[in-house]
């Protein structure tokens, strides 16, 4: 099967007063049609920036896509003209954002904002577009959809706004939905609703979903594959069970260890990762995780490991010592 999207060696930089921020440092992976991909990492690991780069929504300046290819439906998105790219945005790839409170324009009604997209990409007239917008709101579970079209965003609760955002993103049946931390700002019970909704919609509509999050818990139940990112690199990638059960990168191990589980027995101690993520202004030449790694050896300081096959299906790890770690973790 040809992949839906093939990312090749994507690099993104931000030129700031303080210096050059290396936000994304050569990210490559492919996504199949209809797949749910989880992209996991802490703040500043480049997960959002890489997604915005796919959509070419990086503010330039200060941001700049230095190199790489985003092959989507057999063409390189980074080489398209701005007007060609506009046809991709919203129609082929749609995106929802972290904060539903600020992601909708406060001075236009929710209906207007959905209808706007429908008119643009589908060429519907006002009446048909409204009809379709109401259907979409019903689809995402907003009761009384027809009346709520004329409501302003501030009349919606946070969960409702995120639903409206999803409706807007789905309006043109995109092949890929990028969800950039869509539930981070929401409460647990509302998060469960949204996760449930996206899983249902993905099954019904068959689109691919990229779910970006810092919470390894959220993606565990829905993703097929997981990319773990750190300091602008993918440091581990694999099918969901391999990532959680055959964890090989010390960072992923640390991340899982520092997460308490609701079903944990009493007396469990959290395993924290010491130190801080590296400064993206001055990345070390070696492994970016070197300073915080308890398994580090001299080689890690000098050479940055690239992704290599580990045990498991399509499981790749960027660590010189993953075999050694695998031995220790399982024992």
């Amino acid at each position, binding site marked *: 099967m040809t992949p839906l999207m093939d990312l090749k060696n994507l690099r993104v930089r931000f030129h700031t007063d303080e210096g050059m921020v290396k936000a994304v440092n050569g990210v490559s992976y492919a996504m199949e049609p209809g797949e749910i991909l989880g992209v996991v990492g802490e703040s500043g690991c480049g997960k959002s920036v890489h997604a915005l780069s796919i959509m070419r929504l990086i503010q330039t300046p200060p941001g700049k896509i230095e190199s790489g290819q985003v092959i989507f439906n057999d063409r390189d998105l980074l080489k398209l003209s701005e007007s060609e790219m506009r046809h991709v945005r919203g129609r082929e790839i749609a995106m929802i954002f972290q904060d539903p409170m600020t992601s909708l324009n406060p001075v236009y009604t929710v209906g207007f904002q959905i209808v706007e997209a429908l008119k643009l990409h589908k060429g519907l007239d006002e009446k048909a577009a409204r009809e379709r917008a109401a259907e979409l709101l019903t689809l995402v579970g907003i009761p009384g959809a027809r009346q709520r079209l004329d409501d302003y965003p501030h009349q919606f609760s946070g969960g409702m706004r995120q639903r409206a955002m999803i409706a807007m993103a789905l309006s043109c049946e995109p092949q890929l939905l990028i969800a950039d931390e869509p539930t981070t700002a929401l*409460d647990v019970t509302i998060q469960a609703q949204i996760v449930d909704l996206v899983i249902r919609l993905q099954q019904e509509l068959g689109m691919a979903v990229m779910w970006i999050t810092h919470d*390894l818990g959220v993606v565990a*139940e829905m993703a097929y594959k997981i990319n773990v990112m750190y300091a602008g690199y993918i440091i581990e990638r694999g099918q969901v069970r391999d990532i959680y059960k055959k964890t090989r990168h010390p960072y992923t191990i*640390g*991340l899982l260890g520092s997460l308490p589980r*609701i079903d944990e027995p009493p007396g469990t101690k959290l395993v924290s990762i*010491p130190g801080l993520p590296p400064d993206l202004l001055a990345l070390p030449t070696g492994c970016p995780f070197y300073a915080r790694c308890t398994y580090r050896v001299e080689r890690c300081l000098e050479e940055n490991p690239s992704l290599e096959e580990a045990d498991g299906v399509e499981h790749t790890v960027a660590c010189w010592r993953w075999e050694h770690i695998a031995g220790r973790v399982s024992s």
Partner: protein
Amino acid sequence: MNNAAKTLVRVDNLKKYFPIYQGVILQQHVGDIKAVDDVSFVIYQGETLGLVGETGSGKTTVGRTMLRLYEPTAGKIFFEDTDLTEMQGGDLRKIRARMQMIFQDPYASLNPRMTVGSILSAPLEVHGYWKGREKRERVDNLLEMVGLNPDFVNRYPHEFSGGQRQRICIARALALNPDLVVCDEPISSLDVSIQAQVVNLLEELQHKLGLTYLFIAHDLSMVRHISDRMAVMYLGKIVELADRNEIYLRSLHPYTQALMSAVPMPDPDAARSRKRIILEGDIPSPANPPKGCNFNTRCPFAKEICFEQDPDYREIKPGHWVACHFAEDFL
């Protein structure tokens, strides 16, 4: 934790209403936001009581009112045997030395114009226990205690990362050797790997210094991890309070059950196999809570009585308190 343990804090029927004013010429009192509505609990010496709830549940208000940072609308707060609600001026300031607070946002809770040294010595100066060299030594001591280099005393907060700032906040809270520390979402704005560092530090300090914690958070797994007993709040009321295992394994309130099932699990097998309760709808506004049981708008088990009568908050078995009409049926 058994009931023979010494009670440090007792909160009786605490209420905190924020009045809403409206009016064209004269401002009239038209209603209240019932942030905390009749809450009672005790905290035993040396334990950690966890307080969870979603946005608008009033958990932060409970913490702040307990320390008299907000004037309570009604109710009593006993610290050991003194009634805090009766205290004024100097007495209150004196007793505040024994109850301290760690705040949610480490970026907003440190004065950007003050050095770490002056932030930490402020409480020492106000209460005048330490002077001159002793004061400086105490500050160094505090920094070491929370794992920061004492050479940083002359630095400003903006030179530190979020996790380091939260350590400074912890040091400030500990400056006066308090008995009780209210931790108000101390980790929710930190990255996952840093969260574990801070939680481990808090646990270590509790052990070393014999502290008592009220740990407020929305992250259920983290609260369960750190607490001995935990209370669940919904719309200004405590709906359930019990031992950490009891509440996880045998919760008696439908809201607690839903909340537990909605918590993300970093384990694909467990996450996919468990039964989830997805609650419908949003949390009602605390300015206009529903009549009867607060939870009736979202409760899957709501019956007629729930819409008419507010359930009693009662001890259904030793140490397990719950406010649901049908709690006995879940036993």
